[in-house]
């Protein structure tokens, strides 16, 4: 199993957000995590990626056979965990080209590989930008500075393509996207998906799942996964609304 989360309890500022979450993800699978606001979906992403301030009070996160609780965010990233941020941050003064070159070569160094040559790097960058229909003009701009909402999300998928993760978590990647950008983003994800990697797609709406078809759908409520099923669960959820889940858990 690629990712195996057991009885995960996470507190933020002393308040318990995740209350015993279990999740198993195999290579080649796409999992969707749905649920109303404030149920801990983004906290789950933060805990898997090792964000500071998210205290794991109980439970384990096994990834590629290692319990990664306590591992630094950069080591987790270099082990192949990628997060597409809900709100990608702006980094004034750092070009996307310089940023990505540093990131790609950090991973290569971690793997004991030599740094990519400038030519190979530029070639790869061009190829991956084309995949998400990012114009080359963006490469000399500062990371996310002055990007539109859609460009920011496309830029996340571009970075994902550059870093070729084993486990990609997409945190509300569909929010703020028009239908064209949504299609481009989904298309990028589908191109990257193969039998050796897995995706965890956190979303509020079923809309994205028309384009990225999940093998499993999990519904989160109050810090736990309360219902799991196939892709039809997302449709059922869309029809019945989250009230259905809330009523079930009262």
């Amino acid at each position, binding site marked *: 199993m690629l990712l195996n989360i057991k009885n995960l309890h996470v507190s933020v500022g002393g308040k318990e957000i995740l209350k015993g979450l279990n999740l198993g993800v195999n290579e080649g699978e796409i999992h969707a995590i749905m649920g109303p606001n404030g149920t801990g979906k983004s906290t789950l992403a933060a805990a898997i*990626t090792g*964000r*500071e301030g998210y205290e794991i009070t109980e439970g384990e996160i096994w990834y590629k056979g290692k319990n990664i609780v306590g591992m*630094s*965010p*950069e080591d987790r*990233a*270099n082990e192949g965990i*990628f*997060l597409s*941020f809900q709100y*990608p*941050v*702006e*980094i*004034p*003064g*750092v070009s996307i080209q*310089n*940023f990505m070159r*540093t*990131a790609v070569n*950090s*991973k290569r160094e*971690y793997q004991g590989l030599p740094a990519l040559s400038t030519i190979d790097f530029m070639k790869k960058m061009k190829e991956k930008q084309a995949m998400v229909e990012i114009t080359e003009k963006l490469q000399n701009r*500062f990371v996310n500075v002055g990007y539109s909402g859609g460009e920011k999300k496309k830029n996340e998928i571009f*970075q994902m393509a550059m*870093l070729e993760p084993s486990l990609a978590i997409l945190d509300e990647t569909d929010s703020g996207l028009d239908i064209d950008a949504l299609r481009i983003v989904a298309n990028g994800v589908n191109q990257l998906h193969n039998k050796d990697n897995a995706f965890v797609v956190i979303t509020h709406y079923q809309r994205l799942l028309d384009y990225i078809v999940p093998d499993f759908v999990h519904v989160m409520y109050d810090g736990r996964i309360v219902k799991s099923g196939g892709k039809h669960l997302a449709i059922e959820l869309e029809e019945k609304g989250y009230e259905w889940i809330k009523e079930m858990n009262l």
Partner: protein
Amino acid sequence: MFTVMEFLENNIVVERNRYRQLVVIDDTEHLQAQEEHCDIVVDENAQLEMYRIQNLDNTASLKTHIHIHQQRNSRVHFVVISFNAGDLHNHIEVDIDGEGCETQVYGLYLVDKKQHVENYLKINHNVPHCNSDTRFKGIMDDEATAVFNGHVYVAPGAQKTDAQQNNANIILTSTAKIDTKPFLEIYADDVKCSHGTSTGQLDQEVMFYMRQRGISMANARMLLMYAFAAEISNHIKIDSLHETIDDMIKRRLRGELSSCDHCVLHCSKPVGIRNKTV
């Protein structure tokens, strides 16, 4: 240990319609204390591009007083970069005495240990229709302290003045201190003036974003600090000097530059002249 005290006085005139570049490098191989006065006149339609690179021994003291007088349609572009400070005071005053002038003063100070740097800046808009832009940035580490004192004066009748002033600081430790006072004094009503100051630590959101991409904490800090500093060093228009200073900033941020006991310019020698004007 011997002490050398120097007192320098310079008078410089950039004549009408001339374009002059001036590079001044302060280092302290033997100097312990120095005070310097420099009076510069930039005549009508003349342009002065001036760079001052300061890299002092941690125990040295340097006080500079630069007074620039600008005549009609003149331009001043002044960049001062302080790598190591010891005890450093820069007093820069610009009197804009003729219409149609442009004044740009940019500063960067990178200080650590117990170093201390003070920048006093006064821009006097004495006449209408002139622009000034002053930006100073600092990165403070260890127990370093700094003062930024910026003063823009707009005289009565100096209409259509456009004056911008900004001071931004990154503080890396809880023991480093910055005292920043940007100040506007305006006696004309049809002007565009702004001032701002920001002081903070490296943005934790940005740090996490970079680390999530596999970039180590040390490298993420370096990238951010370099980006912050480069916004000032990018104003150096002499390519070879820009390259050298960029290189020095990178080494300084890696902690290599401060380890040079006397003078880093022995390694780099961008122009090969010290304590002299070119």
